[in-house]
């Protein structure tokens, strides 16, 4: 019954198009050869940890700590390119060739469904991880069809950066909680001599993953949703339209500068730091960089605004998953527990300012002193809505980018874009 016939099926080989070696290999087994029961985690010995390039230098010390404690079960670091798509590509190649080179994978939160559905990663024993201590939306990103396939290692949430100095000067009491307030505040600041020629608001609107994030945030912040509780697309709604209308309308009335259609994270950060923007939606990493720029001491952060009250952020971050084709899975499981522990999360927060999945760390006075944005980030993450969890995430996000982009540059009305998007998403999800 459980016989797996693995033939070296001459299915696919190197097909090369424009600088990419695409390898596709499938082994034919008995149909569906699914892991119906929980996977067993056996074997101890050396393993690998696969992640994007570590630019902060905090990763190796953590691994060294593990290696010192477990000299016979050493973890080797495999660094992939910084680019997320390239990381995903290499991990998929490793899985398609059923290689045991990669053991523990650091997955972007949006890849969980795809990797789980392809059975490239193992289902994990939920009870062995302190998930109840983690923020709930973060844990959700690690699940597929109710099962735990990954463990949150770090999180990330969007925040509203604003020029506190200018708001104060314009007589505005605090950061805006709604989009209407944001526009009002902006009008007031623009009347100041310092506010002349300033743009009001920007996020990331270039046609890439950042646009999906910003679109989903706008829709969720207006009370809409991209996918409903059962994971079905539900984007052709009045609420979603109000969300997209905010972005499209802001482009039209100049609240968002025209050039923001080309912004990625860094472009928008540069614009904010050079004093061109009053409000900026961005990730926490901007905080320490802006502290060293010319707006240092002049800005503060707040939760994202929404239509009728505080908005909802998307979630970033990484989860640890266990490659199905790896060896020494018992070691791997222990390592994952170690790596996703509160203590490790704390050292990553301190060393690399990675947002932890653990609720408690956000309230730690010493950490808050180091990172004043933590309370705001906690609210942001708690209210966050993960991006759609779709097996064919790549197709879903392209569809979102295509339609949102068309709506933002005026090629389509918001209503039309959302109707088309609903159709596209249904097709992607096979419904």
């Amino acid at each position, binding site marked *: 019954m459980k016989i797996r016939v693995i033939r070296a099926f001459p299915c696919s*080989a*190197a*097909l090369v198009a424009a600088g990419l070696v695409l390898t596709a290999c*499938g082994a034919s087994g008995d149909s569906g050869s699914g892991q119906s029961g929980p996977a067993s985690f056996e074997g101890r010995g050396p393993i690998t940890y696969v992640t994007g390039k570590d630019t902060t230098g905090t990763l190796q010390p953590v691994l060294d700590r593990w290696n010192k404690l477990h000299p016979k079960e050493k973890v080797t670091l495999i660094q992939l390119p910084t680019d997320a798509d390239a990381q995903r590509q290499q991990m998929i190649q490793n899985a398609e060739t059923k290689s045991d080179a990669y053991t523990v994978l650091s997955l972007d939160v949006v890849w969980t469904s795809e990797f789980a559905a392809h059975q490239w990663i193992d289902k994990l024993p939920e009870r062995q991880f302190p998930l109840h201590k983690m923020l709930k939306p973060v844990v959700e990103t690690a699940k*597929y*069809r109710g099962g735990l396939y990954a463990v949150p290692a770090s999180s990330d949430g969007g925040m509203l950066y604003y020029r506190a100095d200018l708001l104060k000067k314009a007589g505005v009491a605090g950061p805006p909680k709604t989009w209407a307030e944001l526009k009002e505040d902006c009008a007031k600041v623009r009347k100041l001599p310092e506010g002349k020629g300033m743009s009001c608001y920007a996020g990331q609107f270039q046609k*890439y993953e950042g646009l999906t994030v910003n679109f989903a945030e706008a829709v969720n912040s207006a009370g809409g949703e991209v996918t409903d509780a059962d994971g079905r697309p539900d984007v052709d709604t009045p609420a979603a339209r109000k969300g997209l209308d905010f972005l499209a309308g802001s482009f039209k009335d100049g609240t968002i500068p025209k050039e923001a259609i*080309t912004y990625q994270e860094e472009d928008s950060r540069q614009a904010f730091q050079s004093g061109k923007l009053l409000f900026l939606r961005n990730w926490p990493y901007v905080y320490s960089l802006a502290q060293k720029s010319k707006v240092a001491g002049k800005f503060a952060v707040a939760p994202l605004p929404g239509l009728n009250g505080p908005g909802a952020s998307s979630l970033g971050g990484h989860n640890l998953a266990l490659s199905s084709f790896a060896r020494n899975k018992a070691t791997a499981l222990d390592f994952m527990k170690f790596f996703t522990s509160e203590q490790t999360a704390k050292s990553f927060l301190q060393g690399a300012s990675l947002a932890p999945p653990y609720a408690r760390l956000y309230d730690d006075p010493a950490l808050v002193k180091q990172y004043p944005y933590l309370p705001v980030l906690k609210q942001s993450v708690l209210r966050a809505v993960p991006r759609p969890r779709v097996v064919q995430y790549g197709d879903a996000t392209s569809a979102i980018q295509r339609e949102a982009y068309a709506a933002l540059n005026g090629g389509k009305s918001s209503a039309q874009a959302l109707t088309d998007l609903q159709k596209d998403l249904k097709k992607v999800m*096979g419904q």
Partner: protein
Amino acid sequence: MADTRTPTGTAPRPSGGAAGRRTGRPLAPVGRRAEAARATAGSGRMAALLVSPTLLVLAIVVLYPTIMALTESLYGPKGLDPRTGFIRSTEPFVGLKNYADIFGEAGGRFWNAFWNTTFFTGVTVALETVIGMAMALIMHRALKGRALVRAAILVPWAVPTAISGLLWRWIFNSNGIANGLLGRQILWTTEGFHAKVAVIVAEVWKTAPFIGLLVLAGLQVIGKEVYEAARLDGAGPLRQFWHITLPLVKPALLVAVLFRCMDALRMFDLPYLLIGAQKNSVETLSMLAQDEASNVRFGPASAYAVLLFLYVFLIALAFVRLLGTDLVGDGGAGGRRGGRRGIVLSRRAEVTA
């Protein structure tokens, strides 16, 4: 060695057509081996032995991937089993459905990419030819600081495309130098004709030196006495260029243009990095294949790659058929060899690039 090569190499040619050649190729090594076995003279066997490593390498790096891509293109993506929530472990055989989808359902996207590819190839190669020619003439003439001029002209060619894509992205940034020079704000990386212009500028900047280099090599073999004779006959510089330089440099120029066409047809990295993925204005055929492959749909990706392969192959063939005769007439055997090498190289470029 040459004896055994020529008959088998040329035999399938008269049958003509792409199909004839393609089926002719796989058989070629077998035929050659059989022929060698039959040969009584040891020289035939020796020749086969000497050629076989090359053929083996060619079979591995050209034939095998091509056949595999063709086979793969007949399989569809693995489906999701709604009951278990897992992707099925086998790829279904779908026959020509991938191709039918490309021309049917995804037709708009395919033809858009097809026209983009063709447009980019036509415009960039034309511009590169003119500019490259001018560069070659300058490199050829420049007496003082000759080495410096040549090095300066060749620098763009030495920069990897990915890097030049990033460089040009800075230049075409909304607050970049390009907008600074033009004095108005054009959002180059948004959809529209300006995105095409950005790609063309960056591509021409990068590859015109390549044509310049090859043409320079062609210029250097033209004897001085030809020009002297022309000058004595009272031909002006323009006349000399049209009637001496251009015809004599034509074989080298044609090879350069052919190479550039092959290269431009599979353009990927520059639009991808400079403008971004999934921008209709600059999406090329290679980008479509990459997009499918990155979404773990290797069947449709292969189908796109096969179509691109056929397109490149036909262009190469047309090139050699239409201009090859000229090459033979002017340049003799050398020109012809250049043309045939062009085919082989184009196939290799198609597969390895």
